């Protein structure tokens, strides 16, 4: 009988835990999206405008720079990861 109680407790904790994790992260998603929108409205990102202009002038270099960016970010992450924990 006690075992059944333990089983029920485990099931309850599982449901409650997953529920709270999802609810909390959903709230986080909503607030982060709101925050980004607010910040985007009051402080437009100048970088975005720049890239738009550039890509209209010449599309090939920007595609190349995308790839370069990917490589650079991969390298940065690998470098950082060697100094983790």
């Amino acid at each position: 009988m006690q075992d059944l109680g333990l089983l029920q407790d485990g099931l309850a904790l599982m449901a409650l835990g997953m529920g709270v994790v999802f609810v909390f992260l959903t709230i986080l998603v909503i607030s982060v999206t709101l925050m980004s929108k607010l910040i985007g409205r009051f402080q437009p990102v100048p970088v975005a405008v720049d890239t738009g202009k550039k890509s209209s002038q010449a599309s090939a270099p920007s595609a190349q720079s995308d790839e370069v960016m990917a490589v650079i970010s991969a390298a940065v992450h690998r470098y950082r990861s060697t100094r983790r924990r």
Partner: protein
Amino acid sequence: MDKLVTLWEGSGLYNLELGQAVMILVGLGLLYLAIYKKFEPLLLVPIGFGGILANIPEAGLAISALDQAIEVAKPAVLQQMAVALGATLDPLANAEAWRESLKVIAQDPAAPDQVRAAKDIAMNVGYGDGMLYSFYSVAIASGIAPLIIFMGVGAMTDFGPLLANPRTLFLGAAAQFGIFATLFGAVVLSSMGIMDFSLNQAAAIGIIGGADGPTSIYVASVLAPELLGAIAVAAYAYMALVPLIQPPIMRLLTTQKERQIKMTQLRPVSKLEKVVFPLVLLILVALFLPDAAPLLGMFCFGNLMRECGVVERLSDTAQNALINIVTIILGLSVGSKLMAESFLSFETLGIIGLGIVAFGIGTAAGVLMAKLMNLMSKMPINPLIGAAGVSAVPMAARVANKVGLESNPHNFLLMHAMGPNVAGVIGSAVAAGVMIKYLG
């Protein structure tokens, strides 16, 4: 001749028990894994070495002054302590029997005052807490070391990819299913009578599935300190095994076509967003889940130091010097829990077995959630990045990237996978908060 006998009886060889010998071999095994196989060497070297130190016979590095006195003190001191503990010692029995009975009484939590008095006697006679015992009580029993490491992790984490695509937070949430499924698995095992775990212990085992070393240690130290050694070793060993455990599960659950999905370029994230994000997270924790505040509070603090840009020196210390110092002390303290009587049991095997199940389920849940999101949203999502939802930063993200490259050599998923990866850290801290709230 008598002197020679005394010397022999004081030697490690004479006093070495089988359990201690096995644990020293376990410690050497951990060192082997760390040094030759490069399994999380930063943690496993100190843990393995601490494990060896803790099992040196007669040295008592990992036990308190009281236990040490009980083990080696003269009979006169034992009698004094027995009086303090309110126990009577059978005058006919020998000192060894006295030690055994005192040990049982000293571990009884019902009489804290008497135990304290006995400890004072031990201290007065000149016994002190073992070195590793002191490390443990300062670093882990207080909860400080895992929290400082979490601050350092915060200072190393870039939330840019997550902010550019906040929905990846759901992947981090889904992967936490591994934690709770394992908890339930441990409960089922004990209700079937195969193992004997309490709900607290089951929760501490489940958190291995969060793939987050400091979180596992923190939760274990709060909920089930007696299992801490096994849990920490399992958590770090499996984190090192992520590149082996995850890819088969990821391939099994995805089709070649899904693995080739290209994701849209992430938008640039402004500096202001990065500065505000830790504060938003902190406020949400304060409002909804105060029990996750120690972990996520330190995490946000570290991240704010990184992003605000005005405390470079503090941020640099948090992610380098400080985290290294704390890692050494944390590793040795975890090692002190690798003592034969608590580690060499059937339960340890259960923990190690359940740990790998936790990883597998977490990975699978993340991938399946990513598939679901891919079906529902307009923006394509490569299901592989769901596997990065188990934290294990940045190993899991690199695994997702690698598996993606196998299917399409021009598809770099690393930045996309960093989003769910850091979301996993937040998710497992939230899960830890829920468990501590429910059980603590």
